[in-house]
């Protein structure tokens, strides 16, 4: 294991941020810490980096006990949500920082920084200051800076949280390629389930300072361990005691004995996907996700009465 956190507990005053949390992160993997705000995911990342000291528990990095080590000695690269650029230094100096303070030879620093700037596609911008970069460029600079001292693990705290949607999607693709090339063990924190599902080999779902489930994306989606994971990862309808994914909602024109009556309240066309919002005869609301073709074949309109059934549903005891 590249990173092991065992029984980590951390309080801030009366607030229990981490409650006996344990995780194992495989060497070379890309792992997501996923959860709503206040779930403790960022705190766990900061405890692993040594930026917060846990009240109890142990941290191991690359098999070595790191619990009492200062952040300087842990060999981790950390990328902050708001990039934390050194504002008074140029892009080049920012990336070189981890090497210059180690007094590496000048030639080596120059070679490594130029290589990293090319890797993060900031080749021509070394002389600029962080204030002269866009958000996405700043984030890539922060990543290059974290990678410069060749950390054993890379920790990213909501790395795309402050970027607009289009840049975010681009950077995700780019991070995935970068990880394929470098194979540095990476943990990233996110509250965006889509981001976690798209990027990671393994997802740790956190809620109220505890780990709810650890699983690969597909397993997490198909076999959620409990109601929280079911509702937090992927879209979901709750009908009585059962949970139904919107793409598992079947719509028919005629009842077949297992269906319930519902009225179409709204039809939203999102390119390939069509979302049909419904109100059941008992007043419960739900929505169905259909492909555009399926929706056209059904020929339904707002106000129509349809009959709904769950192809697949899940209940938790």
């Amino acid at each position: 294991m590249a990173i092991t956190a065992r029984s980590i507990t951390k309080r801030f005053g009366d607030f229990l941020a981490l409650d006996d949390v344990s995780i194992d992160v495989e060497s070379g993997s890309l792992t997501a810490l996923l959860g709503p705000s206040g779930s403790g995911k960022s705190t766990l990342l900061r405890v692993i980096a040594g930026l917060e000291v846990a009240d109890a528990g142990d941290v191991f990095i690359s098999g070595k006990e790191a619990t009492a080590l200062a952040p300087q000695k842990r060999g981790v690269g950390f990328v902050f949500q708001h990039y934390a650029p050194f504002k008074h230094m140029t892009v080049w100096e920012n990336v070189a920082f981890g090497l210059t303070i180690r007094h590496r030879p000048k030639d080596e620093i120059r070679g490594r920084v130029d290589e990293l700037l090319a890797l993060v596609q900031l080749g021509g911008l070394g002389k600029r200051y962080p204030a002269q970069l866009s958000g996405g460029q700043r984030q890539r600079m922060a990543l290059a800076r974290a990678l410069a001292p060749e950390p054993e693990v890379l920790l990213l705290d909501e790395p795309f949280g402050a970027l607009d949607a289009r840049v975010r999607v681009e950077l995700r693709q780019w991070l995935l390629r970068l990880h394929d090339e470098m194979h540095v063990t990476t943990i990233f924190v996110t509250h965006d389930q889509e981001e976690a599902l798209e990027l990671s080999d393994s997802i740790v779902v956190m809620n109220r300072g505890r780990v709810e489930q650890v699983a690969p994306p597909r397993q997490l989606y198909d076999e959620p361990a409990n109601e929280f994971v079911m509702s937090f990862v992927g879209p979901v309808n709750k009908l009585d005691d059962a949970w139904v994914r919107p793409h598992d909602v079947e719509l028919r024109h005629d009842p077949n004995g297992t269906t319930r009556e519902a009225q179409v309240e709204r039809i939203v066309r999102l390119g390939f996907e069509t979302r049909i919002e419904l109100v059941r005869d008992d007043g419960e609301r739900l929505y169905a996700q259909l492909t555009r073709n399926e929706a056209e074949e059904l020929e339904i309109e707002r106000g129509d009465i349809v009959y709904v059934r769950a192809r697949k549903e899940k209940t938790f005891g």
Partner: protein
Amino acid sequence: MTARYVVRFGSLGYLAVILIAPVVLIFWRAFDQGLGTFWDAISNPDAVHALKLTLEVALVAVPLNTIFGVLCGIAIVRHRIPGMGFVNAVVDLPMALSPVVVGLSLYLLYANDGWFGSWLNEHGFRILFAYPGILLATLFVSLPFVVREVVPVLREIGTEQEEAAATLGAGAFTIFRRITLPAIQWAVVYGVVLTMARALGEFGAVAIVSGGLAGRTQTMTQYVQSAYENGANETAAYAASVVLATIAILTLVAMTFIGRRED
């Protein structure tokens, strides 16, 4: 429209009467008998000595309060030490307290029968009516400026840059020198300029503890006062005032320059 003119001319008129007229008057009175008279007035030995003493005090007080101010600012903002709220409040004391009260309390502490004075006197240290007393008074009154400039800037820059530097392997001193200090440097310079101005211009506290002996323990501000009081040497008073006012104006220019750099 009218309201705008009232605001504009009202504020400018107020400035002219309250601030600019007195300063202009001082320059005019200092030079109205010619450059030669002005030069004689400020090159007389007592004036030169007073200027020298004032600068000697400032050159020790300003660096001391700068180092203290930066360390104190970091302690207030970055370390959750119990009692730091109290320190934060106490730092402002010199702003609230009349300098005369400061001088008096120093007098009571260091007089021959004072708390510290009797012991120090037995061991041959002279504080009152000498350089150390003037320095203590100046340190006291010019203490808050660097702290007050540095604290809000430290709060604003936050801890992320320092944390980033730590994860990159930088030790505490490297972080201070390479990250924190460059980030607060203009606040420090601004604080130094204000501290300097206060140290040079202090009168009330120093007046009580220095004794004001011409050519020995008289500072620039006291020289102005005694020259004026004697009546015989009004030009000297105005000339010395011009020196002080010039330093103040240079300080203002420096501050404006720094303000621009910061933007």
